[in-house]
């Protein structure tokens, strides 16, 4: 038993734990529980029937496709940016890093708005898009763009601090041993950042599949065409089709739980190989 002046009395301690646990249960855990309870409130068959619907299925397909485009794009960007920023010295680096983080500080609605202003019918490039007969807003390309925007920093910001911390000495060693640049990257740099990379991809994917505000602005909510899963949840909910809404929501909540488990596993097992500033 430690001295009373060095730690709290057990009463205070358990009180604080109770407050923390209570607060987290009330605000964070209960909503997730609600999703599954509501989804299953009419039984498993009603729950499964919710997915026996073309619009729901096309929403799932669209969400998966959008993530399948957005995540690799941001992965390529994240790796390129991290390589240039962490392994080289050039002026304006701090500014570049802040610009990469910019999408995190912009409202999802504004993130969608900027693309409407650029490509919409009354937008800057609207007439051009019309003459080329290219539809971006209220179509899939707009949804992809908005998703890419809101998930833009995830992978880069995991990689940059870690690669900066690791320096260039291992790469230099590989070069003196005769490895080519690409070979050096694949056999030395990439294995050193693999867990951080996976971590970034995990978070990027969760956000890409779950984004609502930005996508809502550019989508036009055309059922079966431009409806992603989160947008479909909104439509079903507003139509008072609660079971179906929560059924689709339960898939997204499941994705969130899988993401959390993966994230926690990475933090526990490979915490020292993730960037020190990994938490955000």
């Amino acid at each position, binding site marked *: 038993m430690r001295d009373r002046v060095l730690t709290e009395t057990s009463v205070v301690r358990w009180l604080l734990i109770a407050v923390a646990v209570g607060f987290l249960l009330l605000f964070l855990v209960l909503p997730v529980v609600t999703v599954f309870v509501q989804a299953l409130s009419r039984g498993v068959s009603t729950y499964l029937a919710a997915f026996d619907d073309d619009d729901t299925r096309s929403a799932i397909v669209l969400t998966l496709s959008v993530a399948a485009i957005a995540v690799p794009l941001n992965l390529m960007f994240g790796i390129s940016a991290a390589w240039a920023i962490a392994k080289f010295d050039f002026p304006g680096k701090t500014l570049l890093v802040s610009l990469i983080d910019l999408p995190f500080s912009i409202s999802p609605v504004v993130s969608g708005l900027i693309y409407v202003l650029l490509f919409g019918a009354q937008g800057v490039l609207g007439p051009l898009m019309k003459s080329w007969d290219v539809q971006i807003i209220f179509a899939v390309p707009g949804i992809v763009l908005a998703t890419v925007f809101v998930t833009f920093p995830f992978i880069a910001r995991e990689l940059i601090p870690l690669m900066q911390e690791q320096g260039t000495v291992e790469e*230099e*060693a590989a070069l*003196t*041993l*005769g490895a080519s640049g690409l070979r050096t990257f694949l056999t030395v740099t990439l294995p050193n950042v693999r867990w951080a990379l996976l971590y970034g991809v995990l978070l990027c994917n969760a956000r890409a599949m779950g984004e609502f505000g930005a996508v809502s602005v550019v989508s036009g909510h055309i059922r079966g065409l431009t409806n992603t899963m989160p947008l479909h949840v909104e439509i079903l909910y507003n139509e008072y089709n609660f079971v179906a809404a929560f059924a689709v929501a339960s898939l997204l909540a499941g994705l969130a739980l899988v993401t959390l488990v993966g994230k926690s596993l990475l933090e526990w097992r490979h915490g020292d190989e993730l960037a020190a500033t990994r938490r955000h």
Partner: protein
Amino acid sequence: MLALLGPSGSGKTTLLRLVAGLEAPTAGRLLFDDEDATHLSVGERRVGFVFQSYALFRHQSVAENIAYGLRVRPRRTRPSNAEIKRRVAELLDLVQLNGLDRRRPSELSGGQRQRVALARALAVEPRVLLLDEPFGALDAQVRRDLRRWLRELHDRTGHTTLFVTHDQDEALELADRVAILHRGRLEQIGTPDDILDRPATSFVAGFVGEAVRIPAEVREGVLRIGAQYVPAPAGQRAGNFDLFVRPSDVVVTDGSDEALSAKVVGVRRTGPARRAELSLGEGLPTVEIQLPARHALRKGESLQVRLATVRLFASGTRAGR
């Protein structure tokens, strides 16, 4: 085996990295024997570089680290897997790390990592072996052992070796030739005997051998140190000089024409010897000498001493005696 010796910031590591091709020169050329290597890429130079931090690939085992330079060769020149295995085993044997081939770098001690780094560098059969502060991160005992081991290895394999150090004992003991660098300039290059006995510049004289710099003046064949006068070395021209005095230069005498009187300002007993701090005059830097313990010195006592070697350099410039 050449040592690059100098204080920190003198450009030793930069020079080593230039040789390796990790830095590009703004001017000048780099020659390997007669071949111009200035425009060869790092990989084409075939140097074996041992980094100060060792730079082992942390996600590869010891064996994978050592084999790396062979495995990344283009298919035409890459040895077969069996051959690579044989080479790795041979190198592990050479650096006395048999049985540790499956370990990760994080599971090795500092000295072991150092030897893996060396084996990895040797695997590519480098034209020159470059070592950046090879013993910098190790503790004293390991340092001494590895130093001896490295010298033996060098004598056995005969690689041209360039190593950077800031430790003069290490440089003078290990290298055949030593290059002294200071503020990016080469001050002197020569054998340890040259460096110690015939320093070319005042920087070298002050840098090696724990020398103390005392201002001095020569007029008409007489050397003035503080308020004392002794005959100047034969043929010494007149002027203001820096006199560099090493502990070993000071010889205690019983008084003669050339003797200087020195005051004992401090005495310390260190093991079998006694170290005495001597002052040759008010306001001059003190010289520390080592004496057998039987010399019972007391603080405040006066001694007669003679300088076995008089090293004079014109104040602050590069000049001979």
